[in-house]
C-alpha cells in the first residue's frame, strides 16, 4: 500500500543511506510511525517532522555506521521542500469536521 507523499519522500531518502535498502528504510520508518500513533498512508510532512526529530533517531541507532544527526538533518531538509500536496482526508480530519 502506497504511503503519503511525505512518507514516500522520507523512505526514498532513507533508502539512499549506506547500509539500508528500500525495505529496511520503510520498516524503520513504519516502526517510528507506529510509536507515534501515525499511519503511513495519511502522515503529513508536519507529523513526519516530529517523528524525524523525536523518534527516528532512536530507531536509527540500531543501524551501525549511520550518522544519525546528519541523516536526520537531511530528512528535515527533504520535508521542508516538499510541496504542500493534499492527501486524502485522514479519519481524524473527517471526525474533527463532523462535530463542528
Amino acid at each position, binding site marked *: 500500500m502506497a504511503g503519503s507523499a511525505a512518507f514516500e519522500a522520507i523512505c526514498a531518502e532513507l533508502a539512499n543511506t549506506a547500509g539500508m535498502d528500500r525495505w529496511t528504510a520503510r520498516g524503520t520508518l513504519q516502526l517510528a510511525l507506529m510509536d507515534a500513533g501515525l499511519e503511513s498512508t495519511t502522515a503529513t510532512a508536519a507529523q513526519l517532522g516530529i517523528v524525524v526529530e523525536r523518534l527516528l533517531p532512536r530507531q536509527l541507532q540500531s543501524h551501525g555506521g549511520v550518522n544519525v544527526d546528519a541523516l536526520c538533518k537531511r530528512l528535515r531538509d527533504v520535508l521542508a521542500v516538499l510541496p504542500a500536496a493534499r492527501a486524502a482526508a485522514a479519519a481524524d480530519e*473527517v471526525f474533527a469536521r*463532523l*462535530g463542528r
Partner: protein
Amino acid sequence: MLQIALVCVGIYTLMSAFVGARLVLRAVPTRSVPELLMGVAYLSAPGFGYPLAVIGSGLQDRTSGMVMFGVGQAMIVVGCTCFFFFNARVFRPQSVLAQAAAGVGAILFALSGSEIVRGHMAIGADALGLASVRAASVTMLAVLGLAYAWTAFEGFRHHSLMRRRARFGLGDPVVANRFLLWAFAGSLQVIADSVSAHSLRGGADITTDAASVFATSLVGIVNSGLLVLIFIPPARYTRWLTRAPRGSLAAV
C-alpha cells in the same frame, strides 16, 4: 413498557433526522463526501426509513401502507449502504477489500429489503411469519451488526492512535473522544442487533419481544445522547475535554 420503548426510539429517530439533515446541509456546498454519506445514512435509515416502515405496516389502508412500507425499506437500504461506504471511505480509503465489503453489504441489504417488501405485499404485516422474510430480516441484522462491529473496531483503534499521538503533541483530545464515543455507539448497536437477530431466529416478533424491545429502546436513548456529544457537542463538554489535567488526553 412498549410506550416507553416507543418514546426512546422516537427520540433516537428525531435526533438522527436532525443530525443527518445538518450533515447533509453542510456537505452539499463543500461537496464533502464523508459528511454526505453520514448525513444521508442518519437521515434516510433511522430518521425516516424505520418510522415509515413501522407506520406503513400498521396502516389500515393496504395500498397506502404498502407504499409507505416500501419507501421506508428503500430508505433503510439507502441509509445503511451510505453507512457501509462511510466506513470504507473514511477508515480504509485505500483498501479494495473494504470497498468490496461495503459493496457486498449493500447488495445483501438490497436483496433482503426487496424480499421483505415482497412478503409484505403478499400477506401484509404478518409477513414476518414467512421463513423467507424472517431469513431476510436476520440477514439484514447480521450485515448491520457486522458493519457496526467494524465501525466500533475502527473507533477504538483510532482512539488508541490518538492517545499515542498525544505524547508528541499531535493528538486533539476532542477528536480522540469523538472516536471513543463513536466506538461505544457502534458497540451498543452490535448488542441491540444481536439481541433482535437472536429473538428473530427463535421465532419471536421483535416488535413485541421484551428482550428486543428493551435492547432497542435502551440503545436508542443512550445513542441519542452519544449523537449529541459526537456531532453537536456542547461547548461545556469540549471545554471539559480540553481543560483536563495536564492539558492532554487524560479525560478521554
